[in-house]
């Protein structure tokens, strides 16, 4: 696979990188495997109580659009984005804000989240999530997790009254007969 940065008019100003894009193509046929775009990557700080803590900087990618050909591409796509957190010196974590995940060739995002954090267990922690079920019914919840690696990559899970619900919103859709 080929990984190519697509930094259009990228600028480094005051610890900010703007308009970041990374694309990954298949080495077989040069078809698009994954594309990540963020309007900017800036430094922010972890929130505790009512305050942002200057001791705990985080890198924040704003308006992240993730375009993938399959759920299995999530790991590489997010790893590529992590490479772009250089402005946030000392940042311990990458946070994605206004995240949209779209399948290659589709216009409508399969999943949206106002905030996402890469956890330590191959999962993406999501906040204020909206997606759709297998029958196309809308699903929305406050907090959940998306597996980004392994055999269950693409599994979206969240808790409802102590029960864990799950969904695979990035799976290929079956065609109408």
């Amino acid at each position, binding site marked *: 696979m080929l990984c190519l940065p697509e930094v259009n008019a990228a600028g480094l100003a005051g610890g900010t990188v703007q308009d970041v894009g990374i694309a990954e193509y298949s080495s077989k046929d040069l078809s698009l495997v994954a594309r990540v775009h963020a309007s900017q990557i800036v430094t922010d*700080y972890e*929130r505790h*109580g*009512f*305050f*942002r*803590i*200057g*001791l*705990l*900087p985080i890198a924040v990618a704003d308006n992240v659009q993730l375009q993938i050909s399959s759920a299995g591409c999530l790991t590489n796509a997010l790893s590529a984005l992590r490479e772009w957190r250089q402005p946030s*010196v*000392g940042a*311990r974590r990458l946070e994605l804000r206004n995240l949209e995940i779209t399948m290659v060739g589709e216009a409508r995002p399969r999943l949206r989240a106002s905030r996402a954090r890469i956890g330590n267990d191959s999962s993406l922690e999501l906040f204020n999530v909206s997606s759709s079920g297998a029958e196309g019914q809308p699903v929305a919840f406050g907090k959940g997790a998306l597996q980004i690696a392994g055999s269950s990559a693409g599994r979206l899970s969240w808790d409802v*009254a*102590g*029960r864990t619900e799950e969904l695979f919103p990035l799976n290929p859709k079956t065609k109408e007969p």
Partner: protein
Amino acid sequence: MKTCILISIIAGLFCWNTFAQTTADDWISQGRADLAARDIGDASAAFTHALTLAPTNETANVFYAITRLLTLPSQPAGSNFLTRLGLPVAGRDIYDWSSVPPQDGNGLLLAPAGVNASEFTSQLRTNVLPVISGAISNLLVTDTNFALSLTSSETTAAAVTVDYGDFKLIQAGLYGAEYFIYTLNAQNFDAQLTAIRALATNGNTSVQEVLRDYPQLLTFATTNDLQNARAAFTNAVNTYLAASAFISSRPTNEVRLFNYDKVSAQGEANFRLVLQDLKNSLVAGPQILAVNPNLTVDLAPQFAGGPTWRDWLPKFDGNAIELGSLPDATFGGVIYGLSREQLESALSHRFVMLPVGAPPKPAAGHAVQLAFTTLQNHYYALEVSTNLMAWQVTTNLTATNSTTVLLDVSPAADHRFYRLRDDTGFLTFGGVVLDQNTGSPVAGAHVVSLWDGTSTLTDNNGQFYLGTTLPASIWYEDELEISAPGHLTVDHYYYGDGLVTGLQIYLSP
């Protein structure tokens, strides 16, 4: 002679480091170097030397405040207490703490035998409080332009500048800790940790038993600290308000230890309003909460040595709470506007709330009137028995009030016992079983949950009510099997998050 010279040289080398620091600034530099080397003990000692030479040096004071707090676990009293609690000595590194108390297979902390909960409050009052109070004095920064830049080596995280507002906020937190310790110390926590832990393990010990075995638990141990608690609370509020005002007025491009967060701004503003109302109530009497005009607060009674925490407790039956037994919904006049029903509803998320019946009364036409305390929106089954062994559901209801009155219009036996069972939170099914061909009710049909084995029979009208033991927080479906003589047995899946009523089940002959 040679030996004497050699000893002198060695002694001189040992003392060199001490004599080399001749000014407070030298000691501060030494202390910061120790901090960067992660040597908190030596750093604290160096800042102590600096304060000896310059007691009002703000930098020395704030560094000493921080390091004296961080060295608490390694001081003899703190270290011995941690050992008593079973925390291994290995791993007590403030920079990389890995010492944790032993746990059971379920991850629940083990209680060390022979340790009384009151040792906690004693430890806090005797050893921790003086250090906190000392740190508060050290943090009395008066220069609003004072700022201290910490390197990433010193913080072991990112480099950061700490200014007047940050120190005020830390100070407010320490005043809050003072208030907490004074308040806790006033209470009697005379109970063995093993007994308290037994409550969590849901073993043979119940809340009722713990309260019975420790009759002084949660009464006043002393009222000597209540005025100190009041002063600490007032100081905490005043200092927090000053810190908040300073932090929120900083230029937005300045990054400090604690920074204004516009996302949390509304919540923080509300928090300040509540603090102000609470503080004002101490001098001006009851205050209507600005953020919720339905509530009135008055914190003064809390410091007046009136009712104890134990006086506020409802009546426990095992680990369950008897509905209607909460003695004082104002908690000694501290808060007005909360109803007993609201508090019981809140408690119901954590405790089983038992309905309590008043003595039955005769009603017209040989009926019996039954009154129970109930919780609004909870669903109940009224069960009857003649021998206290076999119970049968006679009716079910969803409560609309804190008291529910029922009538048993046809008490068949000369004596009957009644009880109201709260099925809320469990998958519960209600409906009617009908004949497929005639549409008439099927009496005596057997309705059984295939997932937990609970069962019931339909009454003469074909009606049934089945309260399962399947918690709705875990289960969202059940498979019911319905059978009746002369009909084909059927089973169906039913879904719900609690009470599912109005089911119509048809049986084919």
